[in-house]
């Protein structure tokens, strides 16, 4: 299903909420979602309406790339790039299943060809190059295609002088592509170097969860880094660290708030405010060097700094 069809079917569901047929158990369960944090049983449609944030405890649920785009990007403004890119099987990798079979499975679950969707869209009217990772597809792991799509997105942003926004969510490198997946870290970082030297803005948004090779490459290289509340972010996984140091870690270890406390992210932004904050940051960094903020009032010069 491509992006247009997906939005169209979403629209249809929204226009026609009455369910005529008797529900299967699966459908019935899909109606309700239990909050991972406060255990409250939530009506899924309400949860969706609340951007998949628990209205009781503010737990930010993991969301798909397409849901994210729908929430954050102005309606009908998103033009996808490189939609046709999909994985090969360079190592002919087989663990308990062959890699191509796992890819099919991932696509069946997520409806996506790969773990990142890239394109150009508007955020409250501001045009940006936008990449959104999807943990629901192969654990958001980075293989050749994720690396390539991110690299091409950065190049597109540089060529068109657009701000770059990447929403990360990943378990790390795609093991089934071996060393080639590791090299995607070098590839994306290398392309970011040129982008950065061109003086363009990159905002990295870290969401539940972001780990391994993605954190240790483009996700941590934002000029500005935003994390979603409660998101777990790190290099090594909690279990690996506990096994290595043989001690229990604090409960809030590797959460967005923990990273914030340790100076690793600029801000923790609630989902409901994300688009607004991104728009503000884009505005703040646009225009020519030394430009002053245009004000309509003759008196009381309003500077960007005081607005922030």
């Amino acid at each position, binding site marked *: 299903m491509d992006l247009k069809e997906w939005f169209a079917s979403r629209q249809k569901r929204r226009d026609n909420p009455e369910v005529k047929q008797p529900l299967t158990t699966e459908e019935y369960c899909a109606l309700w979602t239990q909050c991972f944090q406060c255990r409250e049983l939530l009506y899924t449609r309400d949860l969706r309406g609340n951007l998949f944030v628990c209205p009781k405890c503010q737990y930010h649920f993991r969301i798909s790339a397409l849901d994210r785009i729908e929430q954050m990007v102005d309606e009908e403004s998103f033009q996808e790039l490189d939609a046709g890119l999909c994985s090969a099987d360079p190592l002919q990798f087989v*663990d308990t299943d062959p890699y191509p079979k796992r890819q099919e499975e991932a696509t069946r679950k997520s409806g996506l060809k790969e773990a990142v969707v890239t394109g150009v869209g508007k955020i409250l009217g501001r045009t940006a190059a936008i990449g959104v990772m999807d943990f629901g597809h192969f654990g958001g792991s980075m293989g050749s295609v994720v690396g390539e799509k991110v*690299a091409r997105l950065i190049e597109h942003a540089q060529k068109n002088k657009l701000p770059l926004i990447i929403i990360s969510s990943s378990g790390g490198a795609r*093991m089934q592509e071996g060393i*080639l997946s590791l090299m995607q870290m*070098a590839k994306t970082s290398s*392309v970011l170097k040129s982008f950065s030297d061109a003086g363009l803005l990159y905002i990295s948004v870290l969401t539940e969860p972001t780990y391994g*090779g993605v954190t240790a490459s483009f996700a941590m290289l934002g000029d500005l880094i935003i994390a979603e509340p409660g998101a777990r972010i790190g290099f090594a996984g909690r279990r*690996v660290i506990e096994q290595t140091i043989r001690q229990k870690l604090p409960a809030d270890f590797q959460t967005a708030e923990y990273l914030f406390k*340790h100076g690793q992210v600029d801000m923790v932004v609630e989902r409901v405010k994300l688009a607004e904050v991104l728009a503000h940051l884009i505005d703040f960094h646009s225009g020519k060097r030394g430009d002053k903020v245009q004000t309509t009032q003759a008196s009381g010069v309003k500077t960007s700094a005081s607005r922030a």
Partner: protein
Amino acid sequence: MANNDRKPVPLEFEQPLLALAAQIETVEKQLADNPDIEEDLTRLHEQYELLRRSLYAKLRPIDHLAIARHPQRPYTRDYFERWDPNWLELHGDRKGADDPAMVTGLVQLAGHKLVAVGTQKGRSLKDKQACNFGMPQPEGYRKALRAFHHAQKFGLPVVTLIDTPGAYPGMTAEEHNQSEAIAINLLELAGLTVPVVAVVTGEGGSGGALAIGVANRVLMLEHAVYSTISPEGCASILWRSADKVSEACQAMKMTAREIFHLGVSDEVIEEPLGGAHHDYALTANNVAAAVARHLDDLCKLTPAQVRSARQSKFRRMGSMQDAH
């Protein structure tokens, strides 16, 4: 200077060789009493050589891993000392720490003055612990970064030696932002206009290896390995079994030859028969010769060409198809 006067400790797959060696020893003892068996002895020696060669000609990936992790394998300092007895070590990240798991210094090699950087494993238990078994903290990567900037400022080529299980997975490592320390090195290495040559001398473990591995030329010693995750980690995640390490080694294609065929490394450097730990001097020479050859090559390029060559090298990596 560290040396390898001690007898090489045999590995598990070398057991058949040991049996034959024991037999040779017995025959040698009888030789004085019974000169007739000299011919047998010669034949046994020939057999030994044959077996040794055939054993090393068909190593499994997990055997390469065992050699790469051999406790007597030469480490970064062993190379620097042999390349340049007058090499000067540089210390510290200038931000509050000096990670012993990362060594930086000024080294001369075949007429090239270079900034040398490498991960360091310890030899004694105390050293091992001090070096965190070759797993740098974020401070180690920042120490390397400082060395890269030094090289850039003075137009000196960079040579890195990689032998690490990976970046250290610890609590303070995370608090001090291990991810950022690695990521910024990837970015900054991509931007250098001086030549960079990296050699995987032992274990090339994941992002912790790549953080000093974004180079114009990536070389690997014959028995070195390079992978996205440790085979143990891969086996436990994908097979959910600690017994599948050999399968994981095989599936990941992590040996020097395989990495070369995947286009990720540029050359496989020959090791002494049996592995680098059998002859430090020869190994150090082989690596030096290969590094010098690549540096000679790269020094013909302009600074801008050096950078763009490195960037396009990594830009091309990957394997995919376009359905459109």
